[in-house]
């Protein structure tokens, strides 16, 4: 939509989004460090900061990963999806703070370069109990950096959408690495089951939502495949058809007018019996398809003119599956009643 790349194309929605995000983050960090210091006066400040940033990053990542499937399951979550890239960049920044503080705390001021120390201080790569979990976090941070650095539309355009999308699917690799980072690190260090429970619940929610969305997609795909196997032909998203109007499609040589009206869809021949006028260019008036040329009318579900008129046109079987219209190319005899397809209350958004 824009012709020039700005760092951020600000608008009111994005500003609100980011203010809310920032506020929740400040609340979390202040609560964690503040209450943490009050309740644990012996804790060193660096420890609380490392934990605050680390847990906030993982919480954010869980939210980021939930937004996608939620938006597919319920369109009301689309506002959360709109500016998800800022959530993603923020997740990276929190992770960077966590990693940075940890690198300083555990690896700096020693006899090795901190980054080198990160990789060699714990040589027990062959052990499960003593595996150097820090390396997992480090790799995950690199992935999050790659994603954050390429989150701008500039990269979307120049990498091409498929490549960009593949890169950003690496978020799931990062997520798995971080879960392992937590399991092999903090979870082994903490005696309480609270942390393990919170982690399990978080991962379970992410997985459940993805499975639910995948199952729904699978059900939709199966229904569409079934329709195709029955000989139906996909026409278009139902949203593409204006109310009481039609779209025209050529199906196996037949010109078909697909009408949408009162939450229903019907398909009839596009050819008016009176001088072959294009019915698809007409409108539904008083419940009847009305030819734009001379006003001849036909009921959409039967293709028959209302009494006392006698004209009839062929009708076609029609289905709407998750917001997509399918039409069977075999015409029914003129005047044959066909049950209208129902437009689902929840209309699929295409983007």
């Amino acid at each position: 939509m824009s012709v020039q790349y700005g760092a951020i194309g600000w608008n009111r929605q994005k500003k609100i989004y980011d203010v809310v995000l920032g506020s929740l983050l400040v609340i979390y960090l202040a609560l964690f460090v503040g209450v943490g210091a009050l309740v644990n006066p012996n804790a060193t400040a660096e420890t609380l900061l490392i934990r605050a940033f680390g847990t906030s990053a993982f919480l954010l990542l869980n939210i980021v990963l939930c937004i996608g499937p939620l938006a597919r399951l319920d369109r009301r979550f689309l506002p959360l999806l709109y500016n998800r890239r800022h959530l993603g960049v923020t997740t990276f920044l929190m992770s960077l703070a966590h990693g940075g503080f940890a690198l300083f705390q555990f690896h700096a001021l020693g006899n090795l370069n901190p980054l080198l120390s990160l990789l060699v201080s714990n040589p027990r790569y062959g052990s499960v109990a003593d595996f150097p979990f820090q390396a997992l976090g480090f790799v995950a941070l690199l992935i999050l950096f790659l994603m954050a650095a390429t989150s701008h539309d500039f990269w979307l355009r120049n990498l091409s959408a498929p490549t960009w999308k593949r890169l950003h699917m690496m978020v799931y690799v990062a997520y798995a690495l971080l879960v392992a980072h937590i399991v092999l690190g903090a979870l082994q260090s903490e005696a309480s089951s609270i942390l393990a429970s919170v982690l399990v619940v978080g991962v379970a929610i992410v997985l459940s939502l993805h499975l639910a969305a995948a199952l729904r997609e699978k059900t939709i795909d199966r229904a569409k495949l079934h329709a195709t196997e029955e000989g139906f032909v996909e026409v278009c998203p139902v949203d593409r058809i204006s109310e009481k109007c039609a779209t025209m499609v050529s199906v196996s040589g037949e010109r078909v007018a697909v009408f949408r009206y009162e939450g229903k869809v019907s398909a009839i021949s596009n050819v008016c019996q009176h001088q072959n006028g294009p019915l698809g260019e007409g409108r539904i008036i008083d419940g009847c398809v009305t030819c734009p040329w001379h006003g001849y009318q036909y009921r959409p579900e039967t293709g028959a003119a209302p009494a006392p008129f006698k004209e009839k046109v062929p009708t076609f079987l029609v289905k709407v599956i998750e917001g997509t219209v399918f039409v069977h190319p075999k015409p029914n005899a003129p005047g044959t009643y066909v049950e209208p397809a129902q437009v689902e209350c929840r209309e699929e958004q295409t983007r």
Partner: protein
Amino acid sequence: MNDFYVGYLPKAPTELARFTRRVVIGLALVTVAIALLLLRGQNPFPPSAFEFGKARSFEGVIQAQPYAVLLVARPGQTAAEDRYSEYLLVAPGKHGAGDLVSGWVGKSVRLGGQLIYRDGVTMIEIEPGSITLRESETPPALPTRSVDVVTMTGEIVDSKCYLGVMNPGSGKVHRDCASRCLSGGIPPIFIAIATHKQFLLVGTDGKALNRDALREFVAEPLIIQGEVFERGDQHLLTVDPQLLKHQPDGLTASRHPIQPRR
């Protein structure tokens, strides 16, 4: 289509905005709940201290075997074994005090530093360049008492972090730091799980261990068999790194920091 969302329009549809507002409020509550829950789930932090920024002055005799210590006279004490307190010495960062005190061994000095202490054991982080010579004093010979040959379960840590520079200063999360500290010359200590007693680790010859000898064994529960002996008020434990073995492996193996006693 009145609930169709277009992000760049100034205002979202009313019903959708109301729903989103509810979601955000829910997220805020979740945020607070998770923060408090995670705080609640932390291991307790043991009482330990690093008086960072609080410079003090100390006087005593420096000794370097097996690890650098400052012997500080206890006024009024006459019994040979009780005449001195021993403070382990370390340099800033993850470095032992060996380099700082070379040239001062056996001498009576005054030095500046910051205290680090836990469970009755105290350490001084030396301020570099602060060591000055005091009047000459005969270095004391501390009596050494062999106590017993023991087998104990515990954890190897670096003394500086454990005593208070980091909290927690033990356990798996701290492992890399302990590795760096030991490699830098910080004295290694062994914490007995049952008693939380601290033992300075030395080789079977009673001398300081090679700095990286224990790197592979920090921050995991270990069984050590060695000789315990006391020198002054220090407790030392001999260890042969060649004989150390890793405990059975597995995801459920505990790697907790050492918990404070109740």
